[in-house]
């Protein structure tokens, strides 16, 4: 239940879920994963979503990031229904997602993966150009120029994950989604990533939504959401 004082003090919601339900229709049975979820995500906030395996975290994320439309209910970005805005346009301009399985373009270097994403999402080249910006962002997650210009298949799992995160960061979007982004990383690297997320939320006023199993990560977020039996609770 949101109160009047809440809306007065907090920034306006950037993403709203209204009565969102999602059902998978299998060959033999239907699985309802999300049940009538209402929630508002705000700018400048770092959210984590916890929940047991199979509870629907990835499903929730894929709906919120515009990869699919819910079977019922509406999701709106800045007050506009995503289906009206266009899921493709929403993904292209406003949301970026880091997947559970890092989906990098295997025929490119780390740097090319990042710059390609910048081109597709139409990030302005800026003063130093996209390449310089991409190198700077990769450097920040601990990937030097030498590693950045190597084919991504010749990077470790953790390094690949960092490329995927950098790619999402490089696309100057309003909302960043991540599905267990630190699962494959050592503690130091994971902490670096978490710091980056917090910085994005607090200094760049982004909305960051991270699905995780890690209590440590959750403890550093602004709001911890739990998904259980199709319901999202704080």
């Amino acid at each position: 239940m949101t109160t009047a004082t809440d809306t007065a003090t907090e920034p306006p919601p950037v993403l709203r879920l209204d009565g969102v339900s999602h059902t998978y229709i299998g060959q033999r049975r239907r699985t309802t994963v999300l049940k009538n979820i209402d929630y508002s995500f705000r700018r400048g906030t770092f959210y984590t979503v916890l929940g047991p395996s199979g509870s629907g975290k990835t499903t929730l994320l894929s709906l919120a990031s515009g990869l699919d439309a819910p079977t019922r209910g509406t999701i709106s970005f800045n007050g506009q229904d995503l289906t009206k805005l266009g899921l493709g346009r929403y993904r292209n301009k406003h949301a970026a997602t880091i997947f559970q399985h890092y989906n990098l373009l295997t025929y490119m270097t780390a740097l090319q993966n990042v710059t390609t994403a910048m081109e597709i999402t139409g990030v302005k080249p800026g003063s130093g150009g996209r390449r310089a910006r991409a190198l700077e962002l990769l450097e920040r997650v601990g990937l030097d120029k030498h590693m950045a210009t190597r084919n991504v298949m010749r990077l470790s799992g953790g390094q690949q994950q960092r490329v995927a995160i950098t790619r999402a960061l490089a696309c100057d979007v309003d909302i960043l989604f991540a599905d267990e982004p630190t699962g494959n990383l050592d503690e130091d690297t994971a902490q670096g990533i978490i710091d980056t997320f917090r910085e994005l939320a607090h200094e760049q006023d982004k909305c960051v939504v991270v699905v995780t199993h890690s209590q440590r990560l959750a403890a550093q977020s602004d709001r911890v959401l739990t998904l259980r039996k199709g319901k999202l609770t704080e």
Partner: protein
Amino acid sequence: MNFVKRAGLSLRARKVRTAVLLGIFVVICTLLLGGFLLQGATARQEADAQRTIGVDVTLKGKALTPALADRLGSSPQVHRYNPRLPIEAGARGIEPLESDVPRPGGDRSGAKTPRPLALNGVRDSGLLLPFSYGSNKITAGRGITPEDAGRRVAMVEKRLASTNGLKVGDTIRALSADGKNTVPLTVVGIYRDATPDPTRWTPPHLLPGNTLYVPVRAAQQLSPGTADLAEAVFRIGSPEQAEQLHAEARRLLGTGPFDFRVNDKAYKDQVRPIQRVGTFARLIVQLIALAGALILGLIVMLQIRERRDELGMLLSLGEKKWKLIGQHTVEVAAVALPAVALAALAGQIAAQQAGDALLGHQESASSPRPRSPDAVADSPEMRVQPSDLGKVAGIGLGISLVSTVVPGIGILRLHPRSILTDSE
């Protein structure tokens, strides 16, 4: 144009795959081109053969007159035609041949004897059976041609020529059956009939040496009013056209009975093998196109997993679908187009050899009996035509697009979520 750049990166990074694809494409395109060239060459050769060999239709009937033969001869399916108007004639100034053997029962000079020369009014002596089959051969000068129609010329047999010392250019005088008319005839050709002189007494007009060929008009002048055509031969392109000619003959000759005989043996012996090669070439083209599509389809299936992830990822970034298809198209075209160019080189060589082997062989194997010289079809000419290259490029691109883009479209119809989050 970032999708073009992506295509370039993809091709460069997947060097081995690109090379294998290029190799397969070159082979497919080469074989396709070879097939097309062979098809083209056989089609040309078939047309040639239809023109030179053709099918001979022999028409006999009471109602058949030289004028009707001309009308039938002007039908579109008729390439050449030759009516034959046999008459008897006497000779002035030359001695007709006579049988060496004494006449049984002694000389009955009182009885009415036919004129000693057998003249045949013809239009195109090359169509006469003994000439086209080679038992008669021209040894000097030429035969009777359509251009001779109004001229007074003759082709005489060697024995008559040597007995009378005739050469090409000499003039003989023929006497009409009723003895009222004399027609001078210039010898334009001398032929040799392989038939030996009969061993029994034979009247002069039946001796092979006394047979002369003259234009139809000249024969008519020597036999006013009464002459009937023995037959007329029409050379048409194919056995299939015989039916049309038959209908035309029926229309022109009215209700009277007539004899319509189709001789398509030469055609079947020489044209059918060419047609078989043509059919074979068409089959090759179809098989290769099919096999090519299957092979490429298989290759694509093997990498569909990789493609799937790639498409999902690019879609999640909000890339436009047409650009994804554009990328695949560029990747495929970048392989297919150089392959067509290479195939143009290789196809030329392959087709020439295939053509020599197939058509050259058929040619020699199928000529058991002699033909007049003009009936020998030329050896096939194979050149890479721009239209053939266009077809190969079209099919090559078609195959590659179908095998690359169609599965891609299948993936694109899915929601990016199901592409990216379904682990299997």
